[in-house]
């Protein structure tokens, strides 16, 4: 906006500003008092009505109203009931704030008349806003801002009406965008779209008029307006498409020989009877999503169990390259020559080294390498020592199986320097 425009907010310590704020505070004080601190808006409504009765009497007769009782009687005559607000208290407050003068009659002061006028205009304005449905309020408010712009800006005040009108329009089209289907369904879409676009046009006209009058509007607001209007037009286009589809759907439905109401009623009647499921069974052509069972590999199953039970699973253990299965100087376990007679601890160490961990569970290794499993099982079964005799028994089968299944729980294999190996609790 032009710098020459007056702005109230820029004034510091001016007497006019102080008086303006004092008036506002008085008005607020009156509103606060009449509505019991905002708790009883209806009392405020009656209070405004009482002040308007005083004003009306002045307009008609040039005199005031006959004090408290006269005011109450006028109210009762006009609205058919007693006012909800305490008339005496109201007059006291108004008197304290210099809104009225009390003599033989009660009259509005010029300050009271001015503040009541403002109050009444606010009431009318907000009533107009709240009478609109929630779908229409934003566009109404934008329109109102534009209408009010002239009232202030023609007097040289910077009221920021145009940016505020634009902000409301932007909110309006966003609202239209997000609730487009609702608007279409309510039959309000076309009205809203045309009101929205008309308001954009009006705003542009207002800006053009300001330019003609010599006001130089800043570039950002013009750019913002153009961007916003383009977006609103896109939304309007989508809205019109939706309206068309909506109407086409309705027309198609109306043209059908099949009675829609009967169809809907039938669905309602058969909802809980199971009739539709029977019909589906009879027809046999309702396609249902199905899945057939699938199985994983052994390793995946074992991994799953280990994962669920919080145990360590060593997937690489079965593929260890070049692992020497025995450290026996006399022979190899996997060649089954049974020609050694020694403690298997070095063998466990060897496994751990090959696996690359310092500690593991026996089960994760046993499942992968049967020959290790046999050696370890036997080792545990005989107290960590393997003798030729025990291995011969193991090779024989049955006895070995007995021993094998007597193992309790899982075994923890650990490095020699830690705790060697032992049974898990």
């Amino acid at each position: 906006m032009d710098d020459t425009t007056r702005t109230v907010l820029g004034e510091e310590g001016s007497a006019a500003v102080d008086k303006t704020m004092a008036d506002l505070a008085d008005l607020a004080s009156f509103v606060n008092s009449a509505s019991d601190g905002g708790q009883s808006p209806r009392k405020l409504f009656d209070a405004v009505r009482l002040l308007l009765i005083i004003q009306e009497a002045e307009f008609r007769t040039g005199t005031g109203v006959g004090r408290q009782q006269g005011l109450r009687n006028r109210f009762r005559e006009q609205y058919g009931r007693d006012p909800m607000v305490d008339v005496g208290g109201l007059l006291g407050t108004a008197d304290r704030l210099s809104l009225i003068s009390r003599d033989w009659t009660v009259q509005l002061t010029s300050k009271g008349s001015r503040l009541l006028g403002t109050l009444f205009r606010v009431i009318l304005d907000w009533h107009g806003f709240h009478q609109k449905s929630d779908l229409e309020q934003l566009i109404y408010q934008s329109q109102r801002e534009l209408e009010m712009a002239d009232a202030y800006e023609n007097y040289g005040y910077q009221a920021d009406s145009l940016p505020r009108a634009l902000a409301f329009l932007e909110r309006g089209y966003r609202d239209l965008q997000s609730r487009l289907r609702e608007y279409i369904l309510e039959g309000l879409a076309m009205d809203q779209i045309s009101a929205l676009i008309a308001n954009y046009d009006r705003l542009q006209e207002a800006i053009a008029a300001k330019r003609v009058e010599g006001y130089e509007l800043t570039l950002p607001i013009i750019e913002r307006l153009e961007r916003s209007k383009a977006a609103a037009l896109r939304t309007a286009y989508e809205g019109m498409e939706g309206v068309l589809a909506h109407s086409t759907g309705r027309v198609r439905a109306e043209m059908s020989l099949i009675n829609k109401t009967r169809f809907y009623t039938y669905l309602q009647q058969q909802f809980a009877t199971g009739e539709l499921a029977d019909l589906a069974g009879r027809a046999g052509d309702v396609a249902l999503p199905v899945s057939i069972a699938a199985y994983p590999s052994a390793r995946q199953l074992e991994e799953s169990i280990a994962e669920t039970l919080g145990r360590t699973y060593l997937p690489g253990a079965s593929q260890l390259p070049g692992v020497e299965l025995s450290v026996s100087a006399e022979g190899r376990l996997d060649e089954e020559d049974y020609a050694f007679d020694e403690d298997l601890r070095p063998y466990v160490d060897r496994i751990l080294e090959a696996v690359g961990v310092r500690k593991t569970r026996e089960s994760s290794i046993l499942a992968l390498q049967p020959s290790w499993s046999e050696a370890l099982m036997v080792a545990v079964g005989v107290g960590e020592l393997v003798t030729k005799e025990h291995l011969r028994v193991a090779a024989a089968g049955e006895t070995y199986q007995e021993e094998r299944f007597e193992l309790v729980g899982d075994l923890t294999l650990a490095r020699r320097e830690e705790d060697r190996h032992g049974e898990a609790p």
Partner: protein
Amino acid sequence: MARRHNPRYDLALRALLCGTSSGRPTTRARVEQLVGDSDLDGFLAYTRSCVLSRYFTVVEDGHYLTLSLASRELLQEDSPVSGEMLAVFLFIWKWHQDNAMPVAQGTVVEHFVGASRSASRSVRRAIDQLAALKWIDEVTGTQGRTWVPTRSGTGAMGQRFLALVVESSQGRPFSTREVLDFFGVSTPSGSTHVPPLTLFDTPAGHARYDRALRRIIVGTATGRPPTLAAVARITGDPDTTGLAQYAATLGLDRFFRLAVHDRYLLALVEASELYSQNVAPVRATALTLAAYTWYLEEFHGRPVRYDQVEPLFVDRVAKPLRQVALAVGVLARRGWVKQPRGRKVFSLTPTGRECLGRALGLRPQDDHREALREFAEIHFAGFCVHEEDGHS
């Protein structure tokens, strides 16, 4: 000329065949990942020409891919779709078609609220179930939940079913075209619409084998696989050799295998590759529960109670029994276990046993009991107590 196969497409089809661990349809993104292509046109064309299209229909609705099958048996016996769900779906579909608007949940509830005392709750449940099937999709609205029918949903409604519903509601039959127009389903003009094949009307020379295969597929999907005798009655063969040869000739082995468990015939998918691709049809918890259940059934008898398997989860999850219930639910949906309604017991189905047996690499001639004992001692150490010998 021999038909070319695409292993990636076949893998994606296997993923669709065995479903997801969540029970929801496979997402388009997941299929794109398996196929290795963000454009699924080729894959969808492949599915239409693939042998699986004899039994299943692949429906793609922009977000999900669903494999569906039309079967009287499935609808009449173990249908995942209730009459209430069908009523609600038809209402949403028709209302949406009439108004070209998403249907507010309140509108649906209002329509059915007079149908029964608890209609409001039933409608909400039906809507949730339809949403889980992806027959309807929620649309973000400012005033509560709103729904639109999906292509999967409208595509699932067969013409015969729609015609029957219209006939019942109007008191007289209407032509197919009128019915389809009523629901806003477009049909190519000038062409005769061929309704999809169903279980009992497959033409061609090998109809009996196709019927047997459908019977096996549906039976496996519902946890009630047919017996060898039942299959023999359908095929007219004394054994399954002819059926197996027919399945092999069609190339069905690329997608699922026919398996015999006890006296039952099953269709099973070998899913190890899917597990490695992080597409698990059954997750770790449910797999563990199934394996332990098998052990318990073998050594302690069936059915298995919730509290028997609860120790697997004690100290591992906050609510072990809830975990058991969830895992049993997953297994039941996958056809691995069956559970009497309202009771906290369950038992493995032949499908579940065969899946576990196959996972463990057991052959029919193997001593399953002994192998299971050994497996349980290794993997369920600390949880195993054999009743007959008292060893733990």
